[in-house]
């Protein structure tokens, strides 16, 4: 048997170790959205604040927006709220709320107490839009471009750092256009 063959186990191990080392810097629980670079799903749902008004995708096409999935039963959403208010105040990008599997009274109360960073809120009581969007928990935050294409998703609390990243992404699109 050629002696070189005896090095095969060592070689395989080195490859394996390389992957394991790479694996240490990957979070296996971070799940990218299946809708990245795909259009935001069609929907037709009532507004949270104005129950008679029916919202659809047309209501936010034409400019980049952030869609934020939130609910009053979600403690991290409360944590995240501050950051959303900050983003709203910069006026750089409108935030659309997706009130997910919530109760209307509680949600309205929440907005009154904590302030309202949202242009408007889609009231998804059954969570069916959430399902179409691939939401698996709240909060989640989606970045949409002017054509309503999903460009990015954050799972969990949106931080100041995430917001900086978001801004860079939006700027990137502008420079492509010009």
């Amino acid at each position, binding site marked *: 048997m050629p002696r070189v063959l005896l090095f095969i186990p060592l070689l395989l191990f080195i490859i394996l170790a390389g992957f394991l080392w790479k694996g240490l810097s990957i979070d296996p629980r971070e*799940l990218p959205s299946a809708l990245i670079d795909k259009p935001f799903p069609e929907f037709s749902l009532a507004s949270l604040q104005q129950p008679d008004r029916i919202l659809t995708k047309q209501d936010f096409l034409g400019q980049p927006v952030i869609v934020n999935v939130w609910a009053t039963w979600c403690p991290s959403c409360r944590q995240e709220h501050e950051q959303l208010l900050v983003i709203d105040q910069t006026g750089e990008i409108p935030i659309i709320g997706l009130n997910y599997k919530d109760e209307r009274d509680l949600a309205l109360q929440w907005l009154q107490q904590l302030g309202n960073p949202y242009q408007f809120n889609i009231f998804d009581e059954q969570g069916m839009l959430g*399902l179409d969007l691939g939401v698996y928990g709240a909060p989640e935050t989606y970045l949409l471009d002017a054509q309503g294409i999903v460009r990015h998703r954050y799972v969990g609390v949106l931080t100041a750092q995430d917001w900086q990243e978001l801004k860079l992404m939006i700027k990137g699109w502008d420079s492509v256009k010009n």
Partner: protein
Amino acid sequence: MLLSSFLLSAAIDVYKFDDPEKEKRFHQLAFELRCPKCQNQNIADSNAEIAQDLRTKIYQMLNADKNDNEIVDYMVERYGDFVLYEPRVKPQTYLLWYGPGLFLLLGLVVVVLIIRSRKKAYNDTHNHEPSLSNSEAKALDALLKTKQGKKQ
């Protein structure tokens, strides 16, 4: 194998099926789809909110006479390949699906090669070979003797 930090209660909720065949498919689908939020559980065993929603969705789709492929596609469109416990066969998963068969084949080829070289040795030495080589047998005997000697 320690168990810690995950949902503690078994998922149990109640769906009524008019058709036992659908109930079987329901269990099969819930077994093969992974809960996107959980540690590593299928949506049948998980008690997470999202797993309940997905179970309900499967139930509704079954009752709307969707076939298994439609239901699985629906889930993959929304949650990605991640939800499939049985990964689809495509170039990225060729190694996963065909690797074991290939390795088995390779192993058996090596066995055949070894036998051929050994059989040659066997024919050369006829049938007079002791099961251990002479030097080994001697070494073993010597070793065991000293051991027994010590015991006495």
